[in-house]
């Protein structure tokens, strides 16, 4: 069974259709890149997939649960991190782990063992009690990703996880993504770095609420007859940007 199944998913705000009948299947363990220009509808689509926003029409199942009728079950079986909101700056590393472990329904003993394992794996034991707000962005993002996986969700949603992060840390982050996928976690990721798009198993490009192209990076490049996903993206997104006034 696919980890994510989306059928004609649509969301309207008044007269504006933010997400326009998109259909996507993502296999278990796949790294799926969800690309699009600012304002193309990515965030609205993700909000529906994580059960935070009801669709106007269409349906989606995530980790086997319906996002509209079983949104609690969806939220228990997914992880989510975004660049804008992930961890609490005025809590320590360990406190953030405990908080999220509790929210995801882990027992105290599980939080302790998995938290220790996580800190050891990231090499963050010496700074377990430092406030997250004092950590460099790259560390915060790696920690946020690990915390999003603490309850071993079937699917993890990453919304621009590497925004503003340096080239070395971005690559370390993608190592973590590959490792999670190799353990069977399905990864649904947005990024504005087109070199990262090339690392995905498959990707889609959203333009004005619709999925304008979908496939493996190699197939998309062949379809458009270009050498990079960056060029595919520019060809699809530029008319939309011009029409929207920037």
């Amino acid at each position, binding site marked *: 069974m696919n980890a994510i199944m989306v059928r004609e998913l649509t969301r309207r705000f008044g007269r504006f259709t933010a997400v326009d009948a998109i259909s996507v299947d993502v296999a278990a363990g796949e790294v799926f890149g969800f690309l*699009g*220009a*600012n*304002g193309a509808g990515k965030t609205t689509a993700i909000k529906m997939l994580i059960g935070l926003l009801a669709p106007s029409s269409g349906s989606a199942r995530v980790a086997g649960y319906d996002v509209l009728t079983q949104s609690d079950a969806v939220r228990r079986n997914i992880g989510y991190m975004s*660049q804008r909101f992930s961890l609490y700056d005025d809590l320590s590393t360990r406190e953030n782990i405990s908080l999220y472990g509790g929210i995801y329904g882990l027992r105290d003993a599980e939080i302790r063992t998995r938290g220790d394992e996580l800190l050891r794996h990231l090499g963050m034991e010496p700074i377990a009690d430092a406030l997250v707000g004092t950590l*460099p*962005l*790259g560390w915060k993002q790696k920690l946020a990703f690990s915390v999003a996986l603490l309850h071993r969700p079937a699917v993890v949603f990453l919304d*621009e996880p590497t*925004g*503003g*992060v*340096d*080239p*070395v*840390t971005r*690559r*370390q982050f*993608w190592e973590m993504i*590959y490792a999670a996928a*190799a353990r069977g976690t399905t990864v649904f990721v947005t990024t*504005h*770095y*087109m*070199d990262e798009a*090339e*690392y995905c198993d498959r990707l889609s490009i959203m333009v004005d609420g619709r999925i304008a192209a979908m496939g493996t*990076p*190699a197939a998309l490049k062949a379809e458009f007859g270009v050498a*990079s*996903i*960056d060029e595919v*993206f*520019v060809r699809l*997104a*530029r008319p939309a*940007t011009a029409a929207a*006034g*920037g």
Partner: protein
Amino acid sequence: MSASAGAPVQLRGLHKRFGDTVALDDVTFDVAPGELYGLVGPDGGGKTTLFRVLTTLLLPDAGSATVLGRDVRTDLWEIRARVGYMPGRFSLYPDLSVEENLAFFASVFGTSITAGYELIAPIYRQIEPFKTRRAGQLSGGMKQKLALSCALVHRPELLLLDEPTTGVDAVSRREFWDLLHDLQASGLTIVVSTPYMDEADRCDRVALMQKGRVLAIDTPRAIGAAFPRALFAVRGAPRHATIEALRAYPHLASVQPFGDTLHFSDRRAELPPAHVMREVGAWLQGRGIREVAVAPIAPGIEDAFMALMGDAP
């Protein structure tokens, strides 16, 4: 581009600490008139602290900083009037409309939107249809254009931009950089920080910063050319197994994912490239990697930057 009295930015031995953290460590460089100068480095590298010193918002602990011929310690009011600054975080008034924000910034600098219109027109025209909308309700790309308009409305001689394109999509980023080149062509000197290496490539010169220190200053091309070894683009399937196989290669110097290839270098710099290509190709095939291809490639600024940062695994 040596030191000269006319350099819009002159930094000599700048130091700044916050408690135990060294934010700026002996930073020395000049920005030439009309130059598009990039600051590149990881978060915590010192870029934002440097912008705060240049905008007279923060005093250095030691060293000197001259902006448009004025001392940041003593001539703050004159510097502030002649410099445009776009901070990294969105710093406009979300409850004011687009037009109100712009009028506010104009009045703070003793001017008006009309007086500054010519310079901002190419940017502001794109958001003018939304001028009655509250700034907090703009899309990311429009917020960025408004912030740039506000930084330019008093016709500054020096424009300072702290990560203006973080979180902005690839197409809008490209358009933003086209705008920067237009502004540069009008005579403006620009200092811009970025985490994107494709943007660093569009600067006249870049300073690579890490932990408050300047690691290198040069043109993007020269920084790329300073990569210490021969570099190869390697392909293989499955991709992750190919990375693992290269990591196990006994003569590995570095391997980094790069778009749809892997950039690989061999520790034995003296070997002819053809030899390395043969040996690495055979090594990968021997480990069950399919569709192996190895080709020489010219190092770019991102390769050099990662090498300077210490080729983290």
